[in-house]
């Protein structure tokens, strides 16, 4: 019993025979070198794809191990560049040459800088500033300070203070309440003009005029 499939094959046979006689279409052989290179090119692409899938660190290590001389040259060049950069960096200066200057906020100040030249690893530099004052003014202030100090330690001033204290002595009740305050005042004897009261200042000026 012949199937429909076999009948179809029989009908196609003359055409298939003619096609076979014609040879294989597009059957021209490429250049002979093509086949010897084909396998190599495929494997090169395979290896390139494998390398692309590897992590960066692994690729770098593989490159270094495969080309040690080139890797050494690159490493040396990079080290030389870094060293040259460090040596020629204008911002990198030695510690002892550093001078930190803090500008005065409102007026011009002479700046005095102390640097621990002998001890580079000591505490940070301290900056001391003082106002710019004329020499004559400085001399006058110095003489005033001396006079005030002399006066504060004089017997007249002590007597004056005692007299002023007696005059302003409070009642017994008020005295009891302000014992601590009085005690504190007694321990802090005036050492500068800023700490004196207005009345004390007036008496100081009075004493100065008398001394003159």
């Amino acid at each position, binding site marked *: 019993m012949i199937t429909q499939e076999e009948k179809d094959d029989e009908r*196609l046979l003359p055409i298939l025979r*003619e096609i076979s006689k014609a040879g294989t279409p*597009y059957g021209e052989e*490429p250049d002979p070198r093509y086949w010897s290179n*084909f396998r*190599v090119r*495929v*494997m090169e692409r*395979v290896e390139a794809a494998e390398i692309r899938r590897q992590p960066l660190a692994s690729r770098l290590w593989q490159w270094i191990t495969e080309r040690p001389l080139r890797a050494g040259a690159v490493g040396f060049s990079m080290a030389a560049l870094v060293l040259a950069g460090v040596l020629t960096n204008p911002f990198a200066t030695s510690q002892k040459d550093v001078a930190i200057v803090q500008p005065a906020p409102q007026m011009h100040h002479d700046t005095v800088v102390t640097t621990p030249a002998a001890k580079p690893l000591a505490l940070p530099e301290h900056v001391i500033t003082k106002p710019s004052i004329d020499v004559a003014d400085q001399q006058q202030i110095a003489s005033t300070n001396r006079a005030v100090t002399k006066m504060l330690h004089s017997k007249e001033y002590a007597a004056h203070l005692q007299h002023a204290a007696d005059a302003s002595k409070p009642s017994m009740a008020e005295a009891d309440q302000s014992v601590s305050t009085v005690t504190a005042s007694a321990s802090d004897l005036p050492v500068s003009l800023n700490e004196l009261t207005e009345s004390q200042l007036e008496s100081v000026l009075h004493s100065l005029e008398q001394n003159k």
Partner: protein
Amino acid sequence: MAFHQEYLLLTDEELVALFHKGERHGSFTVIVERYQKRIYFAARRMMDGDHDEADEVAQDTFVKAYEALEGFRGEAKLYTWLYRIMMNAVIQRSRKKKSRRTVGLEGVENTVETGEISAHDQLVQRETTKIIEKAIETLPPKQREVFLMRFYDELPYEEIANISGTSVGGLKANYFHAVKKIGEYLHQYGKIAPEFMASFNASV
């Protein structure tokens, strides 16, 4: 890149097993060596004879095969599996290319006119080949694929069905119509006797 001559004696299954064991480059190099021509020419027929396109497709096929061979478990023959990868590469490339290259029959006629008498038989054969190439190019894609796989690559219908995802019955119908159209084309150029084509058409 080492090429192991001793691997040439191994079967496909043994080469794949070797690949799975970690001898990837050595075994795969032999697989490439074994199938490069068949894959190249199959690709070239699919790409209308363009050597450069066929070369690209064939290389893509093997590179993709290397990446996927780890998962190959031998459900199909190795060549069938490679062929399927090649067909996918052809489809991808054809989509990129969009328009297929068309070849006029001027080349066929010129070949006949400029042929030498001493090489007459060769020229006749060459002429027929060109006509067949042109006939194949005019086929619908499905018929064309089936015809090339069945007639030139000699794949059984079951494997073609596996590659193309079409039923065996549908493939046989496509193959029949493809051969008939090529016969008609050959008849137009006097390569098949008129009485044969008449009887062929009458019997269909």
